[in-house]
């Protein structure tokens, strides 16, 4: 049995090589072993921080740019932004997405995503047909200072019903996160980043519908393997499994890929 598998959530693992190109090459070797044909790629924290300056945003995106340019048939880049610097974010979106090779926006833990500073970013993302992947987590141990919750993403999505959002990690505490995004059809749930707890995928498919659930690994915070097991081990139909593994992210990215003339 072969599946087409696209990983919607990977980070450039800088410990894997001397250059961004080498790092992605090495990462893809492990993806290959699991049959993962495409990855969405972005930077992670920057020297242990999420609160990037505009210069650091550009530097981190430059590395992803180099990596995806070397593997255009394997990796789609997302621009990593810090919404505390809204104007710099807009410039960076134009540089990386409108004029560059990138196809999405990645927001990590630099700003609560229900803040008004996000609105211009989302509006430009809509114009560029780019999905917005927002890290979310809901920790009983306490979130980071600027870390978003799935409820905050729901607020943002309600303000922008025409935009496409991906709820990173499905809120971490997925039994709460899935509920939080359930009323908002423009939010997709990203399965990655937490333990491969049984029932996660089944609940997401049951509550959101199979069209709103995406496989992702969160490499290198996690492995390709453990997170893929969430989908391959789930008690869902084969047609739904294929949507989660690749069909949904392909559909989600199709408008911007078409706009850029990228054939898949």
């Amino acid at each position, binding site marked *: 049995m072969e599946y087409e598998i696209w990983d919607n959530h990977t980070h450039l693992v800088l410990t894997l090589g001397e250059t961004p190109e080498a790092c992605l090459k090495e990462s893809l070797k492990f993806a290959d072993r699991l*049959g993962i044909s495409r990855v969405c790629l972005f930077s992670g924290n920057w020297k242990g921080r999420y609160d990037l300056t505009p210069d650091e945003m550009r530097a981190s995106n430059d590395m992803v740019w180099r990596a995806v340019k070397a593997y255009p048939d394997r990796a789609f880049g997302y621009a990593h932004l810090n919404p505390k610097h809204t104007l710099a974010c807009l410039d960076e979106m134009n540089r990386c997405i409108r004029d560059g090779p990138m196809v999405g926006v990645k927001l990590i833990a630099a700003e609560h995503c229900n803040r008004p500073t996000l609105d211009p970013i989302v509006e430009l993302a809509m114009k560029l047909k780019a999905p917005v992947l927002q890290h979310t987590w809901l920790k009983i141990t306490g979130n980071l200072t600027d870390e978003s919750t799935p409820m905050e993403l729901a607020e943002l999505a309600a303000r922008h019903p025409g935009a496409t959002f991906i709820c990173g990690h499905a809120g971490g505490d997925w039994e709460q996160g899935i509920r939080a995004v359930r009323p908002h059809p423009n939010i997709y749930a990203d399965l990655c980043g937490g333990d491969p707890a049984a029932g996660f995928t089944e609940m997401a498919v049951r509550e959101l519908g199979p069209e709103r659930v995406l496989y992702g690994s969160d490499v290198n915070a996690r492995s390709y393997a453990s997170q893929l097991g969430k989908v391959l081990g789930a008690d869902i139909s084969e047609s739904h499994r294929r949507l989660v593994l690749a069909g949904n992210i392909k559909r989600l990215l199709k408008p911007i890929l078409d706009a850029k003339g990228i054939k898949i």
Partner: protein
Amino acid sequence: MTKNKPLDSLGRREFLKTAVAAAAAAGAARLGRSAAAFAAGDATGRLVDVNVNLGRWPLRRVRFDDTAGLASMLKERGVAQAWAGSFECLLHKDMAGANARLASECRREGQGILLPFGSVNPKFPDWVEDLRRCADVHRMPGLRLYPNYHGYRLDDPEFARLLGLAAGRGLIVEIALIMEDERMMHPLLRVQPTDVAPLAGVLKKTPGVRIVLVNALRALRDKALADIVNAGDVSVEISMLDEINGVGNLLSHLPPDRVLFGSYAPLFYFESAALKLRESPLTEAQSRALRFENAHRLLPDAG
């Protein structure tokens, strides 16, 4: 997709035997069979899973939380033997009752592959009798301890005494360091991870005890992990190992005979552990050691 190396002749025979058995058991467990086959790849065969659990997780129903269903699922995925603890042992005060049910369930519904690993809480009155029954009455090959749920540290003198008694009876001792991500615990059931640091000192005073750390590799890494593993006959399993090429990296800095296959099923998807064996490029010898040979060393009749 990159294809893995072919199995050696023994592995191939075992794979075929398992595949035939799995085919005969078709329908026993409801699952995406094609997905399971994809996940198994060449990891099927003579697997020994040292970390499965019977009973219901207190906070969630999951598939395969019935013993017969779990045993069928494991057999279908090529598991020849699984070391089974009981979720009841986390919170039940009648540990003897929980252990008796665990042994009975494994015997009646384990389809010949489930081995019971009962628990003992050394803070309970007359816990030595619980240990005696595990060994003498239920003929268990080992124990699974939950220090953080049972309220003791590994420098507790009663823990050292427990290890000594277990070693004297030839019992393997599995120590679960965590049961779930502490960031996602129920607000009324928050439990700190077990601090494994005192274990090295205890092991020096308890020669001969065989330890398996389960659910250990989320936080225990690098030098701290190597120090513990090298402090005695200490092994780890891979259910909570989670990084790119995780198994390959682990084998690069631990003795090769100390790494075991563990899935933490049914609370974790079994496929997550199985796929780790595909993600990392392992030599045939590494793969065999991890899949079953290292478990055989600890329990010679395993699988």
